[in-house]
């Protein structure tokens, strides 16, 4: 960095101001604004993230993913380090041509799930995952003597 002595003349100030305006990024939204705007333009339905509901009952957690038009063979479910990732490939026919795009979503598996017993079912465009709770993690009522 170089230190320059400035000459605070009126002319210099005007030209600095002018230069600032001519800066290629002057007037551009900041990165933060840009990304928040992107988020508005691309709401959930069109983004590549699957929508999910998670419910819990006394025996299990239930996750429901919306995957309309996705075939069973195009769904992949992976469990890695407590992170469950669902990837669905959606193929769409437009007349003679066929297009496909991939949707995915990861959820963290809650503590106390019997990982070996996780089951999945595809029904009416909804992927239902059942994550059973391990026996010793279920709530118990203790009798008073």
């Amino acid at each position: 960095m170089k230190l320059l002595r400035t000459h605070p003349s009126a002319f210099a100030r005007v030209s600095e101001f002018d230069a600032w305006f001519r800066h290629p990024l002057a007037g551009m939204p900041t990165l933060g604004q840009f990304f928040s705007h992107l988020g508005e333009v691309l709401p959930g339905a069109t983004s590549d993230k699957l929508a999910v509901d998670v419910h819990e009952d006394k025996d299990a957690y239930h996750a429901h993913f919306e995957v309309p038009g996705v075939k069973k063979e195009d769904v992949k479910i992976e469990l890695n380090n407590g992170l469950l990732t669902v990837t669905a490939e959606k193929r769409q026919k437009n007349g003679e041509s066929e297009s496909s795009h991939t949707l995915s979503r990861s959820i963290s598996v809650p503590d106390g799930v019997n990982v070996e017993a996780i089951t999945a079912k595809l029904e009416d465009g909804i992927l239902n995952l059942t994550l059973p709770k391990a026996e010793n993690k279920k709530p118990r009522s203790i009798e008073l003597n």
Partner: protein
Amino acid sequence: MNATCTPSTCAPAAPSGVTESLRKPLYHVNGNAEAYEVRVEMPGVPKSGVKLDLEDNILTVRGERNSNAREGLKALHRELSPLNYLLRLRLNTPVDEEKMTAKLEDGVLAITLPLRQTAKPRQITVN
């Protein structure tokens, strides 16, 4: 039939007289010289929950979700809409109502609307 229709005025009367809120499903329309195909995305709707109706060139599709409300179920995270679906499309081409078909597969309802003979483009040969 009234051309303007908001979901609340089109909704079938709920048993208690309360108007039901509905949501418009995503849909795609493809077509060729023979027929139009309308694909309506209605995840969560079983075959028994689909109602189709074509009247005065207005195609009405209703989809009722399988309610999975069970006792002792606590919602931890909600993104999916629990609302039933309603789609109304005004057709500007005469279709053959008798030959209209629909198939529900993987939460997508595919409706085939064959064009009426007179609506098909005709080739006229010049002598």
